[in-house]
């Protein structure tokens, strides 16, 4: 079982961000932490004891806006209610601006992986995206993290936003890879409803910078990172060998995960099929009863099969077809032979002896490929 802890607070919403997060005053944050502790306790009693936690991930928002004491109390209750694997990957997302004085404590609490939202090294680009930190803030945060003992650091960067050039992106990549961070997530900007960017760009269909340009920047990122020793292991994720995010890989491999906190999603075992559910996204409802669910559904076997394939294909290692047979009792080919042949003929997927993977072309048209596997 994996555990995701959602911290829906940040100092300021970025222009592109549609995550469930926003600024809040101290009293709300305190109430939230109490509710979260209550939820962790209660949900652990429901099914937490069944297995140890292999990963823990504090995401947001910006979890680092919580005080050290608050993070500690959450961390402590997790430790009390769950068994945690000795080798568990324990990640926290931080903002370069709000984490500096905390990274040392985070390391002491037991976090062993840090995910820093940098996005770009260029001041004008950071301003455009609505980021509140500077590259200098990041450098200080990064070096503090290293000094505190973090040996597994992810840096988020963004691609394909207006104003970014091949050159400016190349500089960002060049500079962060010089730091030898272990993991890089590189996301193409997507315009989501309810964000300031949506108001500005929603009349543009597809990538704001144009499809052609977006793909050029994407493949340039892939090429540069590969050259610098990073493995392209998921559509938007890169890691030095052995440093692939275990927590995120769990989503793509359909591992079970428990999500706690406002609007957090879970995938948990249920008697007839796996259950996916989501906590309420209404803060007042959550504070009143942190077990309030917004939606919940038990998956059919067909749905689990579909998920296994389209989530698995996001990873460059693809779907392990041997494991698939063990899990579902049928071969992928017997279910999707025609689809596979058709997609292979179009050059979109490659069928190996025990795997099914997207080709480079298939990455460009991933959604089309995924949709073909839906019944």
């Amino acid at each position: 079982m994996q555990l995701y802890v959602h911290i829906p607070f940040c100092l300021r919403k970025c222009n592109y961000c549609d995550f469930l997060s926003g600024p809040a005053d101290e009293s709300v944050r305190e109430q939230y932490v109490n509710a979260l502790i209550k939820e962790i306790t209660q949900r652990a009693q429901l099914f937490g004891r069944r297995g140890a936690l292999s990963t823990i991930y504090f995401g947001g928002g910006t979890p680092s806006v919580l005080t050290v004491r608050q993070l500690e109390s959450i961390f402590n209750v997790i430790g009390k209610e769950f068994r945690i694997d000795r080798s568990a990957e324990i990640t926290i997302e931080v903002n370069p601006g709000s984490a500096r004085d905390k990274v040392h404590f985070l390391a002491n609490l037991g976090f062993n992986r840090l995910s820093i939202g940098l996005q770009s090294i260029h001041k004008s680009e950071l301003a455009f995206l609505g980021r509140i930190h500077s590259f200098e803030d990041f450098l200080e945060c990064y070096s503090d993290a290293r000094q505190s003992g973090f040996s597994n650091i992810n840096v988020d960067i963004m691609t394909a936003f207006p104003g970014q050039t091949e050159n400016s992106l190349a500089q960002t990549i060049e500079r962060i890879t010089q730091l030898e961070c272990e993991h890089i997530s590189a996301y193409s900007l997507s315009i989501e409803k309810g964000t300031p960017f949506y108001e500005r760009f929603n009349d543009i269909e597809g990538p704001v910078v144009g499809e052609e340009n977006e793909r050029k920047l994407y493949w340039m990122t892939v090429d540069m990172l590969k050259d610098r020793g990073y493995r392209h292991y998921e559509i938007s994720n890169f890691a030095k060998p052995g440093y692939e995010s275990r927590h995120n890989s769990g989503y793509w491999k359909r591992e079970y995960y428990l999500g706690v906190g406002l609007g957090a999603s879970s995938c948990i075992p249920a008697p007839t099929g796996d259950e996916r559910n989501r906590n309420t996204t209404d803060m007042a409802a959550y504070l009143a009863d942190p077990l309030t669910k917004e939606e919940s559904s038990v998956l059919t076997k067909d749905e689990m099969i579909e998920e296994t394939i389209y989530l698995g294909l996001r990873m460059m290692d693809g779907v392990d077809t041997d494991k698939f047979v063990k899990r579902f009792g049928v071969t992928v080919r017997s279910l999707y032979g025609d689809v596979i042949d058709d997609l292979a003929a179009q050059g979109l997927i490659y069928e190996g002896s025990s795997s099914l993977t997207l080709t480079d072309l298939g990455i460009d048209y991933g959604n089309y490929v995924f949709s073909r596997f839906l019944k």
Partner: protein
Amino acid sequence: MNQDHIRNFCIIAHIDHGKSTLADRIIERTGLLTQREMSEQVLDNMDLERERGITIKSQAVRTVYKAKNGEEYIFNLIDTPGHVDFNYEVSRSLAACDGAILVVDAAQGIEAQTLANVYLALDHDLDVVPVINKIDLPSAEPERVINEIEDVIGIEAQDAPKISAKMGIGIDDVLEAVVQKVPAPKGDASKPLKALIFDSVYDPYKGVIVFFRIMDGKVSRGTHVRMMATGAVAEVVEVGTFGAGQFIPCDELSAGMVGYLTASIKNVRDTMVGDTITDDDRPCDEALPGYKKVLSMVFCGVYPADGARYPDLRDALEKLQLNDASLNYEPETSVALGFGFRCGFLGLLHLEIIQERLEREYNLDLVTTAPSVVYKVYKTDGTSFDLTNPTNLPDPSEIEHMEEPIVSAEIMVAKDYVGPIMDLCQTRRGRYLSMEYIEQSRALLKYELPLNEIIYDFFDALKSRSKGYASFDYELKGYEQSSLVKLDILVNREEVDALSFIVHSDSAYERGRKMCEKLKDEIPRHLFEIPIQAAVGGRIIARETVKAMRKDVLAKCYGGDITRKKKLLEKQKEGKKRMRQIGNVEIPQKAFMSVLKLEEN
């Protein structure tokens, strides 16, 4: 009941002049049973019918009116469609009637379909009873409209009831006028049975339910009826009349009456609308004239979106044809669309209604191709044939010449819009015949127009150019030689048979160009570039390109996104289902109708 106390009539009107509202008022104001019937507790039977859930689909209803002279009259009100497409349907309702209420809007006056319907009624020797409706409107001018009726139609209208069906004003005057002016039926109940089938419905329990009007003779349970055209014989199980929403069984129906019968008839083909029913044991000498067989004017291909439902489509068409003899169909195959039917319709509205009924009542998902008229093709070898499917047009070298159908059109339009309407007719290759002012502010324009210029969007164009102040009616005049070519559409260099259509050679380029533009918008981007070309006789005359899609992938998908992203993928997948695969291009089903929307953006 004595025939003297029966009135069989219909209501005719231009669309929106208030026909249905008046019909509702008449049913409201009259009763469903005579006093004698009430005492016989027919109500029980009605309840039974209600329990079985059988409702009358036909637009016929029998009501009982107690007139001012104190006597009860049976009114059989038979509804008629108002649209030009349905002259045939109007005509078959009229054949069952002895009179017609003509509803004219007190503000708008006579419109094109008013005239068309009156002429049809007079053709059937019906007495026409004018009624001026909507007198409550501020713009109502009943006196002007009365004079217009007298001047233009030439029927007495001075004492026409002035009513508002909406407000319920003057309804009694209408009912009295029906008693006074619609003649009673004049059949002979002692003669052999002779009855006209004017409609029928299929009921899973009772089989075909036949609606008819008895001219002579009588029919009751046990009568061996024979359908004179089809020769089918059956023993009557039940006869009855039409309540509002129910069948009311009775012992016997006789001359002058309107009602239904069931006879365990399973095959819908046995009871053709327009056929004559007689008594097999005592047949009448000759059948009733029936209806003028109306030829289908518009044809299109109708295909099931899901090829496996071809048999369902066939059954549905068969059932619809039962009470709509004007619907023709025969199987055809298309490279693009698979197995389907070439269907013939009276007009575009008829086509749309049938399409909608197939989709709604029979739960079919359809792909229809661009409508086409019937062309006459004369070949160099001296033979000729009627072309209903553009795909079947022979090579130009084998064609001596072609003819296209021409209609005589009457357009009634407010003076201010005469110019734009004349322009419209001009661009549609219309031949101007005449214009007369029927009053100071309105003109009646007469044109001859090629049918293929009006089947697509002529009504819409007429409406938008006259701001709604124009009405239109037409009838087939005949065929004329014309310079016609087949416009082929190639998608990704493959000819798509279902997209071909016949067009006048002068407009081929423009139509081709517009068609390419339209398809460019309709066809989604693929992983590769798709040329869309229009060609005449193998020569490309227009081209557009659907650019290749370069990216279709979401950057992020984590634990919280999975359900949401799946919905997105499902939507994408659903979209694909509504596509037709032509070569390696997926064409949305609605694209096959895009030729309909080439004009007037």
